[in-house]
């Protein structure tokens, strides 16, 4: 635009010279026209500016990593003046990793029409992808003036879900032994004789004491009772969404993948678990109890909508202070870096609780006798939990 302004100034100087050097009235008309023309443009495009709106939206609310996300910008110009030069600047940012990407479009804007621009993006990292119309500027026909349009709906968001890896871990039975439960699994049988899960025909290998003798005599078939599997909520997963300077998008991605995989693992194994995190936007500690795989996805979506933070370990602090946290048999603390202080603080409370720290540190990991520490390497989530008893 500076080029056009310089060109206009040169033209103005030429017109002034023309006015001085040529006696005819035309030179004066040209000069005042040259001054008046930009003013006319200013007037016209001031009206156009007020009658133009734009809104951004995404065609889905959530998606997987590396999947196409169609972003649509709806633009409406309610005047008879088309705009040949419109600069649309979009900003795509991941609210968790706080990384952003800017895109600029030079497009025409039709008069009196609804126009939509569709572009496709993808994210290889999970998180909440916020799409924002950073600014939208229109230029007059001679590109002397720039007008900023205020977008009607300047932001939209899409949740990019983390990948879930099947963990080759083992659920610890001791968790169930120590804690009574009133709820039972509806999909999996267990060994609790106080609640029958199912009655079915005998099959080889069934225990003799599970035979339902009365029913067998009535049906003339050997029937056996399946006992229910008691479900207890003895596991607490605590993702600490604190970012530090060394944290790369890949690290963050591994962090979320690990969390998703753990939750999914527990859900698939009918282990009700609670996920506790800090939402910096609402300044709240959120406890989300996951009972089943669908719950796990909902939990993840909610968690990914939260913003990351930098200042302190809100989740750990809450765990240390909140006595209710001690009711869980197993506390799993997910953090990018487990420094000595964090490890010792985490280990020092609730001695009866089993504690596990899942960290993603590239450097030193501090060991503590009270706490199990799993250091997950980026891209090796499954291997990190292999044969691990959770």
């Amino acid at each position, binding site marked *: 635009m500076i080029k*056009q302004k310089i060109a206009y100034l040169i033209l103005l100087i030429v017109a002034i010279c*023309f*006015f*001085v*050097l*040529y*006696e*005819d*009235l*035309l030179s*004066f*008309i*040209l000069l*005042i*026209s040259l001054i*008046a*023309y930009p003013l*006319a*443009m200013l007037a*016209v495009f001031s009206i156009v500016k007020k009658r133009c709106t734009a809104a951004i939206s995404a065609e889905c609310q959530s998606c997987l990593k590396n999947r*196409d996300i169609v972003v649509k910008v709806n633009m409406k110009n309610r005047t008879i*003046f*088309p*705009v*040949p*030069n419109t600069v649309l600047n979009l900003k*795509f940012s*991941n609210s968790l*990793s706080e*990384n*952003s*990407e*800017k*895109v*600029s*479009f*030079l*497009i*025409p804007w*039709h008069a009196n*029409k*609804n*126009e*939509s*621009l*569709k*572009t*496709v*993006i*993808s*994210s*290889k*990292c999970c998180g909440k*992808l916020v799409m924002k119309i950073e600014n939208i500027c229109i230029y007059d*026909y*001679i*590109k002397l003036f720039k007008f900023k349009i205020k977008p009607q709906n300047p932001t939209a968001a899409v949740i990019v879900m983390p990948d879930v890896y099947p963990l080759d871990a083992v659920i610890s039975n001791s968790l169930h032994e120590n804690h009574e439960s009133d709820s039972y699994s509806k999909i999996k049988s267990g060994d609790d004789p106080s609640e029958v899960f199912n009655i079915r025909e005998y099959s080889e290998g069934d225990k003799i004491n599970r035979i339902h003798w009365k029913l067998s005599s009535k049906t003339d078939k050997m029937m056996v009772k399946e006992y229910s599997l008691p479900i207890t909520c003895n596991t607490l997963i605590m993702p600490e969404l604190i970012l530090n300077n060394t944290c790369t*998008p*890949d690290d963050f*991605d591994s962090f979320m993948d690990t969390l998703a995989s753990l939750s999914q693992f527990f859900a698939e194994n009918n282990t009700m678990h609670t996920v506790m995190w800090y939402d910096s936007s609402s300044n709240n500690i959120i406890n989300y109890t996951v009972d089943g795989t669908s719950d796990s996805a909902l939990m993840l979506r909610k968690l990914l909508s939260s913003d990351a933070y930098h200042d302190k370990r809100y989740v750990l602090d809450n765990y240390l202070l909140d006595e209710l946290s001690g009711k869980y048999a197993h506390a799993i603390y997910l953090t990018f870096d487990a420094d000595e202080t964090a490890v010792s603080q985490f280990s020092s409370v609730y001695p009866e609780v089993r504690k596990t720290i899942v960290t993603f540190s590239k450097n030193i990991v501090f060991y503590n006798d009270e706490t199990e520490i799993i250091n997950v390497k980026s891209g090796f989530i499954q291997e990190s939990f292999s044969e691990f008893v959770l």
Partner: protein
Amino acid sequence: MKERSIKKEKAEGVTSLKPHKRLGKTITPTNPETGITVKSTISLSVENKKSHELFRIIALFITAFLGCFGTIYGFINMFSINLYGAISGFFFMVFFLFFASVFVMPKKGLLLLLPAFAVYEYLLSQNWELYITGFQHTVNKMFYKINDTTVDYFTVSDNISKTDSVTVFFIFSSFIMIMLICYFSISRNSSLMSIFVTFPLVEIGLYNGFSPAYPYMFMIIAFWVASYVLSNSSYNEYAGKSPANFVRKGNNFYSKPNIKLKVNDISAVLAIAIAIIVLTASYIAVTLLNYQRSQNINDMRYNIKTAAEDFSWEDLKGSLENFLHAINANSVVNNQNGRINQNGNVKIKNRTDMIVTFDTNPMANVYLKNYVGSVYTGDSWDKLPDSTYKQYSEMFDSMKAANIYPQVFDMFMETKFTNPLRSINVNIEMTAKGYKSNFVPYNSLNQNNSFKFSEDTYISLPDKDNYQFEMITNSGFAKNDWDEFVTEADFEEYQKIQSQYADFVYQNYLTVPDNQYMDEIRNAYSDVLVAPENNDESDFLMIMTSGISTGFAEGYSVDADNFCYYINGNQYKLDDHNMNDMVVLSQIKNRLSQDAVYSLSPGKTPGNRDYVNFFLMENHKGYCEHFASAGVILARMAGIPARYVEGYVVPMSEITSNNRTENGDYRVEVKDNLAHAWTEVYVNGCWQPFEFTPGYSNGTTPEKENESLMTSESTSNDETKKPSSSESSSQRNETRDEPNRETNTSTSSTSETSKSSGGSSYSLNRPNASLRNSVTYAVIIILAILIIAVAALAIRRKYANSEREKAFLAKSAKTSTVNAYNYIINLLDFDGISSKNMQHLEFAEFAENNTGFFEKGEFLKAVSIALKASMSSHSITEEEHQYITELALRLAHDIYAKQTKLRKLYMMYISNLI
């Protein structure tokens, strides 16, 4: 909301691989830092959008029509050219519709141009004579209008109808003009070229003070605005080159013209509408307010024009100062500096250029000398070349040593001890700023050695704005001691130098150009160039005392008893030599007064004519510059050294008691109407001002403010009066009968020969009669244009090849790879394999299957490499770069070999692809 996408508008774009020229930096499409990838798939859809093609065509037609109609008919209107309106209008519309349609159509429509040009060439050759005659009539018409004259520039045969020929000329010319305008406004969207094509036609008139009628001018301006809007609202760089509708560079996407179609074109039409509204409103406002240009603006215009005319690289600083003064100062004095053919008509502004104060009434016209012209070039009076002065450096050194210069020779008269003398203090205050030399009265004393002498012409003083002189004059009042001014020793030195200087004068101030124009003048005026043989002293005294014929500019008196005369206090004794000179000068003056009339509006001398010849032999109208120039030429022909002088004259009639100040001084406001040119003749050993201009008798000047036409005292006031002398008349008739005289525009040199009057002659570039044939001239022009065109094509090809080579060898392997790929795309495009609306990989597969230029997978690999170079952050290996470059060169060779001869030429020189 139902949304319907239009195919052309909904552009599934892919990134162009061509490097972006407007952005200096490169942005990686996918940012590894953020993990967010912005894909190149863009679509733009518009709700309820109907087919836009007709709109687009109409909009483009409107734009181009304004340019064509405004320019061509504006030109016709500007010069009031008569032609058959209906026929020319019909052809105008036919040509316009043809070219506009051709350029709106896709590329293949351009093929229609070939037969059209063939027909054009054939018809032009058939009507060549009419065309050339029409051209000549048009030029004549322009010449009349520009120079306010009825003199023809070209002599045109009467056998061909003027209107017929002009109509034919315009029909054929408009064909080319319309083609160019349509091409640049429709096909190329180039505002710069659109202006380049149209502006010169308008400028011809504007430069000379004419403009087309406002509607035409408004159309042209609207066309320029529309062209500007069209060229500024698209990313034209890639038009037609890439399959994508968006051009991508990093994360910046630029839509191309084909996606903007309706928006651009409607914007251009709206821009036109706004421009016309603004122009019309401005016109109405200016008319209603009865706007008049201020005098300051007019003065500034005049001053800038003068400064531009005075511009010289030798005195760059001074020239620039002149410009600054011209802009800042209210006025600058009239400064022709010997350029005698600058103004056809003299415009008097009644502006005060200087204030001259005399402490005593000089009782005579006072000439304030400024510029001295010595060498006549046909349209100007130049200084003597430095080389001439160098030849006489010894003499000028001795002048310097003695501090006696020809400029003050008139102070050393024989009568110094006997004649009553008096000194008059003269003060000159310049009101016009920026003048870099002084105006010096004759007979001025060099007080305190304040004079700075420039060779034998000027005197300058340190102060240019306010300066004083002591002027010696004889007014018969009091007698002072001459020793007060000049010592005996000085006088002896003067005599010695004067004798040397006389040789210099006779060598250099008798030359006239050696050409036919001068010969014509010499023949026509031969009778006045020599004194009558039977002339005696009494006849001379009669001439001298008549007070009419004598041209000496300053106060003169005659002492018949002592057989001498006085000019401004200096006594001249009559001897045979100076008596003859006086008689001849008087004869010339009388003859000039008879042959020509004084007019401030004589019109401009045609560019191919000699200034003095045109004045004496044909026009017979002129003002002081004409008379002075003619006087110098004729005096020199008569063997009397003479030169041309410019300055101001303060007439005695202005120095009256009405102008006296409280302290008794005479204060005269010298206005621009007193600017003057006269002659200096070398008589009695010094340069004396001599008037050949009628009306400048002692004590008076013509009333320039009130009259545009003045005659001499002895002639009538009739401007159209023709000379009474039958001899002169016959001379003029001969001149007019001379074939092709007026059509000559070329030049030739003349030999340097010595003139009989004793002075050396110099060569001048003057028209050659053999080249006066206008047809030959036109052919030469066409040939020259063809040669220039061929040379331009050759240079363009060389430049394109060099640029391609540079592009292939770019420092960045990625850039050079992308360049090579673009070259491949262009080559395939040239061969008719367009990648439009196809993704790169899709196009690669298509090209491999349908062209026969590639083996399976070959082009696909090249595309992959190019995509890698363009999109990926990975570097390009030397092997990959070489692969794509070799493929490009091989393809160029294959495609070239496949073409016909004509297409090969087209590929080489027009497309510049090989």
